[in-house]
């Protein structure tokens, strides 16, 4: 009997303890969300390729320096599933406070899609935000008059070249397309694999090449081509400029500018040939040059603009394509804004560009000198008439770019004709 009484005596004590713990936990939660207590901002970005995220380093700096008791937590989501994961989180109402993505609606990770659904905070009243958007990217960052995010750097899309291999063959970077075609034969004759390396099995790589060819043929001649396409004044299939672009792909292939079996090429097969100097150039974002340089310590890996039909119409795509937006449902919008405001300071932008391998936004916005490794692109980067964001970012959906990449595969294998590829792109635009 005594034992039972003892047990009974324990129950109220245990219940009271549970209540106390619950109350303490609730109090803890309350203080965490109160304006005076620490605020945790969740930040999502896609996973970097085996290196420390440049985003993490800016966030570390912010966490150490801010005096508002704000703590930013970085979540890295694998590239393949990034957009799908974030999309699901938005739908479920638990999306991160700050999300990374591409501006516009044309990329697979387009933030414009979230903006159209009213999921992003309008930053147009924040001077630090509106001042950070280059004029050329205005339509990417503004949706229905609302500023949906801020860029963090500028990503040039040139050729990444093995300068040491060029030197060993006594070649200069081609300044016109015709020179480039001549070099293709010269490189083969010298016993190298090819002038250009193409990961033809990946539509993202063939698509990027297509856009680089379109730079001088379409967008240097008519910078407003996308707007005209959106309003229905032009079409891909009806555009001689786009036909010339895709015909250039066929010509490059016929002239042996790509490695053998380019249609089945992958980055894994092209990269070793490139770093060994057997392939002289690849189509890739400039930021990759630093990583490739570390794989080829005896070679100088550099960047060069892909030549236009003439020197004068050579044009560079350089996109403020890494953007940060704030979730409209976030409970910590002010804290998230504080982070982005910190990020938009020139010293942070320069630091971030140095880490990401891209060009600092300050060079494009304020004409500050570009870093030494981009000296060859400086003429284009600092002249607004000779650079623009990647046009596919403005397209209404990612399938158009996919159709371009897949279509170029078809051109390489002989499965498709130029007109058919362009018709497919028009069909994707309408869908």
């Amino acid at each position, binding site marked *: 009997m005594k034992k039972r009484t003892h047990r009974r005596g324990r129950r109220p004590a245990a219940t009271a303890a549970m209540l106390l713990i619950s109350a303490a936990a609730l109090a803890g939660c309350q203080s965490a969300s109160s304006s005076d207590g620490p605020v945790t901002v969740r930040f999502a970005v896609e996973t970097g390729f085996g290196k420390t995220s440049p985003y993490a380093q800016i966030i570390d700096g912010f966490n150490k320096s801010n005096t508002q008791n704000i703590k930013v937590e970085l979540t890295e989501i694998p590239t393949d599933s990034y957009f799908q994961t974030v999309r699901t989180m938005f739908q479920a109402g638990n999306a991160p406070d700050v999300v990374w993505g591409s501006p516009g609606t044309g990329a697979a990770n387009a933030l414009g899609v979230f903006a159209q659904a009213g999921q992003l905070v309008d930053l147009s009243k924040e001077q630090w935000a509106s001042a950070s958007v280059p004029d050329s990217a205005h339509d990417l960052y503004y949706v229905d008059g609302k500023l949906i995010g801020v860029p963090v750097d500028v990503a040039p899309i040139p050729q990444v070249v093995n300068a040491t291999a060029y030197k060993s063959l006594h070649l200069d970077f081609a300044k016109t397309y015709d020179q480039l075609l001549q070099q293709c034969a010269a490189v083969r004759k010298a016993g190298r694999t090819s002038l250009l390396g193409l990961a033809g099995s990946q539509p993202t790589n063939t698509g990027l090449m297509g856009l680089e060819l379109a730079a001088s043929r379409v967008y240097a001649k008519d910078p407003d081509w996308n707007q005209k396409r959106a309003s229905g004044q032009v079409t891909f299939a009806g555009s001689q400029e786009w036909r010339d672009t895709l015909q250039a792909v066929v010509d490059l292939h016929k002239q042996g500018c790509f490695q053998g079996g380019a249609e089945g090429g992958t980055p894994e097969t092209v990269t070793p040939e490139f770093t060994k100097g057997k392939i002289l150039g690849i189509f890739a974002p400039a930021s990759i040059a630093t990583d490739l340089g570390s794989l080829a310590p005896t070679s100088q890996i550099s960047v060069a603009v892909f030549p236009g039909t003439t020197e004068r119409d050579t044009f560079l795509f350089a996109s403020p394509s890494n953007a940060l937006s704030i979730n409209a449902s976030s409970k910590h919008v002010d804290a998230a804004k504080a982070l982005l405001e910190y990020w938009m300071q020139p010293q942070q932008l320069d630091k971030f560009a140095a880490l990401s391998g891209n060009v600092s936004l300050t060079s494009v916005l304020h004409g500050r000198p570009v870093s030494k490794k981009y000296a060859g692109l400086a003429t284009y980067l600092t002249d607004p008439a000779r650079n623009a964001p990647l046009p596919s970012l403005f397209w209404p959906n990612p399938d158009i770019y996919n159709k371009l990449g897949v279509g170029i*595969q078809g051109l390489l294998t002989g499965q498709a004709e130029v007109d058919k590829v362009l018709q497919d792109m028009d069909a994707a635009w309408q869908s």
Partner: protein
Amino acid sequence: MRSVAVPATRVEVVETEGKARRAGRRAGGSIAVWWWAVPAVVLTIGIQYLSVAAGSVYAFTNYRGFGKATFVGFDNFVKIFHSPATTRALWNTLLLAACFVIFTNVIGMALALALNRLLKLRYFLRVLIFLPVVLSPLAVAYVWKFIFQPNGPLNGMLRTVGLGDWATAWLGNPATAFSTIAVVVVWQNIGLAMVIYLAGLANVSPELEEAGAVDGAGPAARLFRIVLPLLRPTIVIASTLTLIQGLRVFDQVQALTAGGPYGATETLSTLVYKETFVNGKFGYGSALSLLLTVLIIAAALLQNAALRSRGD
């Protein structure tokens, strides 16, 4: 000794009561069995079937992953049947499934017959052949992708033995990409078919074959007249399983070619992935998924009906 006469009617009553009690126990027992099954049935229906049914509703909308979904009737299905890309993907799906069913079963059965008895190394060889089945399809596909690269080991070997003219971009060449995928998928699943047929062969009595041999039947006659008829139920199971698997192959195709070049290896599964998760067309993707599901069910039922004999 005097026997005790028990009235017949009394015996009948007792027997009837006993039967009723046993029947009651049996009925109670079967109800109890059903009660045990209820949680599993509810979970299966709730998690699998209801979620699939709920997902199917999106096939009739233009849902894009978030926001509101607008009902569009059969528009997505009309688009599917008017799209050459989808028609090609449908054809590729059926062709890949057919190749998968035929080659996996024929080779799997041949290996099972070869490794059923007699051979001393049969247990080791069975393990060796079954091993790819337990590997991740994605990992296996990436290994094969390396082998099939334009400058990969396969082409290197061909060049070494003087067959350099045969070297090609196996996965980039539309003439070879599809069959290359088929080779990988079949290779990885032969072991599973072999194990199923080995289990079937375990039920074929050696005495029957010996009797056939005594009666003068040769190896071919014994195979076609005795073994294969007895393996019929196993063939039904193996071919149905491989057909379902063949129709929904995704990992290997996605890893090897992602449907390329220019859609030459696109299947309904890869198309569902692209339309849904890359292009964000969840409604259209759901319609494609629904079509694939219906296709799998119909094909499996048809095949089952065709292969099953009346007595089965």
